[in-house]
């Protein structure tokens, strides 16, 4: 519980009803989308403006109170799990679209706007905001920037970082920093905005975001390829890339995941295949048609049993949203699902996938794997029960082996979910001592009192 004097100061800033401190309210902000992590905060504040955020941080800085910023709480590495007794700064009420600037192909938004709304507003202006994380319907753009979120279109269109032109950030002591412009070219000083993208709320609180928009592709085609073997699917992916075709989406699901997704979405996925590739190509209609034909040829030549093309926009959307539900759908099989996010160079996909299978067998843990095969980003998901300590121990060991192998292959421990709490023990091994040292020095400089999301990413 937070002391009464501090709470009343916060009430005078954000209003009585935007300060939550009942046991019930604290219990429902104790988690994000990550399995097994729960920490009860001292209070939840829901500010409405950047100015309120600045005044809150001034107080927190003076009193050395931990502040964990969050949006919709869909994070998958525990990055927005509270600090015991600390402040949860929930920005969902800061959800205004400030400007859609068609002349400069840019959009200015507050951090609490959902990613889906960003995409919809862009589309309404005849433009396109490509990053589409799995939780697009509810994740907030502020959370996306803070985690440098990826999504299904990363392969062709990149990730959130590639669409951030400028940021407004409230620093730990309440100062407001504006960094970046709507200019395509801008080399005036260090590109400070890049420091905050993917910083998981440890360096500042993002209060306004200027996003880059692009013209939408004129045509697209969604396809599904069925495989009897995982290696064939992985090989097909390598071949597509080798043939210099860059689909906007190149996803895969293994047998376990397919079954769960089909049970949820009932869209007629085959239940008797080992792997399924979900692809989308987009661009000029002629280019799309050509790429689709070439992909079909390559898939069939590398062992695909069947290649199907979506016949309508509705079918394409159905396939993509079924894929987005993959992680949650796996929860049908086990009480606890622990999702990982290893990423490897695309040439190493087949080896990584085989290793995950072997590790699962060796430690006797059930794993469902799916992910963004086109960009080497895999989501092996461990199906377990948090109440079974012995099995959780084996899961832990299996995970460690998967991480170590990914790093050995020249990959990384997390492609798009972030480090948060879940990957913290593995960060030093992945990035090395020099990078760790610089990270710590930056943190000490931006946040000398250590109030911003303390204990996340590194200790």
């Amino acid at each position, binding site marked *: 519980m937070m002391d009464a004097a501090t709470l009343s100061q916060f009430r005078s800033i954000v209003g009585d009803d935007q300060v939550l401190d009942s046991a019930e309210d604290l219990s429902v902000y104790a988690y994000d989308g990550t399995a097994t992590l729960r920490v009860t905060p001292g209070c939840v504040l829901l500010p409405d403006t950047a100015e309120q955020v600045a005044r809150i941080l001034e107080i927190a800085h003076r009193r050395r109170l931990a502040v964990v910023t969050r949006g919709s709480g869909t994070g998958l590495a525990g990055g927005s799990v509270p600090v015991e007794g600390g402040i949860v700064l*929930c920005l969902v009420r800061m959800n205004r679209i400030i400007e859609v600037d068609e002349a400069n192909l840019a959009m200015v938004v507050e951090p609490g706007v959902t990613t889906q709304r960003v995409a919809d507003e862009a589309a309404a202006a005849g433009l396109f905001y490509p990053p589409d994380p799995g939780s697009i319907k509810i994740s907030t753009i502020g959370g996306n920037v803070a985690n440098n979120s990826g999504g299904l279109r990363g392969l062709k269109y990149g990730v959130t970082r590639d669409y951030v032109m400028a940021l407004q950030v409230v620093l730990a002591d309440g100062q407001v920093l504006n960094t970046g412009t709507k200019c395509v070219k801008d080399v005036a000083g260090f590109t400070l905005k890049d420091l905050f993208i993917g910083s998981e709320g440890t360096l500042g609180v993002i209060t306004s975001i200027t996003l880059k928009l692009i013209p939408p592709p004129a045509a697209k085609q969604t396809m599904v390829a069925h495989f009897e073997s995982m290696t064939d699917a992985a090989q097909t992916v390598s071949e597509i890339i080798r043939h210099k075709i860059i689909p906007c989406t190149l996803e895969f699901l293994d047998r376990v995941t397919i079954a769960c997704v089909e049970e949820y979405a009932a869209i007629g996925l085959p239940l008797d295949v080992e792997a399924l590739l979900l692809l989308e190509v987009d661009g000029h209609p002629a280019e799309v048609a050509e790429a689709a034909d070439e992909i079909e040829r390559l898939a069939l030549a590398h062992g695909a049993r069947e290649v199907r093309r979506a016949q309508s926009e509705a079918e394409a959307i159905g396939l993509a949203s079924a894929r987005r539900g993959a992680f949650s759908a796996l929860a*049908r099989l086990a009480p606890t699902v622990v999702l990982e996010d290893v990423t490897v160079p695309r040439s190493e996909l087949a080896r990584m996938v085989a290793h995950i299978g072997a590790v699962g067998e060796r430690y006797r843990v059930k794993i469902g794997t799916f992910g963004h095969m086109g960009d080497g980003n895999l989501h092996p998901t461990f199906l377990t029960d948090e109440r079974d300590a012995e099995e959780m121990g084996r899961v832990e060991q299996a995970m460690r082996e998967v991480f170590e192998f990914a790093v050995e292959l020249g990959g990384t421990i997390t492609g798009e979910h972030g480090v948060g709490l879940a990957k913290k023990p593995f960060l030093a091994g992945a990035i090395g001592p020099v990078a760790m040292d610089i990270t710590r020095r930056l943190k000490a400089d931006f946040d000398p009192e250590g109030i911003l999301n303390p204990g996340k990413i590194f200790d």
Partner: protein
Amino acid sequence: MNDPKKEGVENLLQGLDYSVLQQCMHCGLCLPSCPTYVETLRERSSPRGRIAMMRAIADGDLETSRIFAEEMYFCLGCLACETACPAGVDYATLFEQSRAQVEASGVLDSRGRRLVRALALRWIFTSRRRISLLAKALYLFQKSGLRSFVRASGLLRLLPASLRELEPLTPEIQRASTRTLYQQRYRFLNPGSPKYRVALLSGCVQDIAFSDVNADTIGVLQLNGCEVILPEAQQCCGSLHAHNGDLASARDLARVNIDAFLPKRARGEEAEAVDAIIVNAGGCGSHMRHYDRLLADDVDYAERAAMWSRKVRDICEFLVEIDFRPPAASPDSDVLKVAYHESCHLKHGQGVSDQPRRVLESIPGVELAQLPEADWCCGSAGIYNITQPEMSMKLLDRKMGHIASIRPDVVATGNPGCVIQIEHGIRKHGLDARVQHPVSLLAAAYERRRVEVAKRDLSPESLIVEGGRPI
């Protein structure tokens, strides 16, 4: 914090199979589907937040507090979260158990509330006879001129604003019950050699306020080769009770209905008397499908309850299943622009979404318009518009905004609660549209065809057996 064993009261959430709670992996994908979350942006008012509180209570970390209780009654129970949930969380069970736990704990107890609950849940809505008596009284009030007097006199202004808003939500009572209409209009139409034998749940509110929808349902079924029976001993389906924390009454009513529709038979007798149990109210159907779960531990009833759940069909679902005859005439001389509003418990509770649209699309002269957010709750939600008028009206205004944007002639919907709520919305927003059950539009189309045919001096029988040609 609190040890339920010391309380001496069984905590229903602790008694629940823990895996139902654990099924929620708090990914948050339900949030954008939840009307109360979208309006408030409060985690507590989201499905994920509510389940987290339930789990905290089951774990003994949180008490069954007033805040929790109020939150559980703030939840619409619309089940949109179930449709959205990839993990397959059984929110309906969690919702019912939580409200039952709230009632068992007594945190909301007051003398007035006890009296209202006893009167409504235990006395009126457990007896069709008492419902019908109440309906007669209301009918007299509405038709005798007394209501006009009360409205004109300004007596209503003596009531608090929240109650005053409710008066127009009282359903219009119809003079004739389903049974009377059935006798008058349709009994003679029962086909001689039926393809299907079905039984209809006439419902409680449906029976007194929308007996015409029941009569239309019967007529449409008969014209599609079904023999329709109306079991005399049936009662309210019990959804009102189950959704309001009175699971004991809900079980009693389920047993009565099972006895009425699927009487216990001696060994060797034909076990399955009807092919389907038809319901035309989304809220009732959603609950009826769960009789199996409700009576799973009842040795005398579990088997028949399971059979019951397998046989329940929404009317539009059943019509599509038996490949109903598309009507040959339109229900109206003008083309009707129809907006279909999805009842939450039809769509999310029963997964019936396409079939009512297919029924509507089959009707000549009906132009089905795309209603934005068609499956967003209208705020009726059983008795939610009475218990939570403020949120209910917010949702109604949101719904009416969408309806106004397409200006339909008819709003079609498959649940009496939605009909009453949207009719109120239409009056409140000064729109010009009527609200009808899809099956009533279908019945009207059949009827216009019948009149056309009758003008050509054909007997009513000839129209039923018009060898495969649509009627």
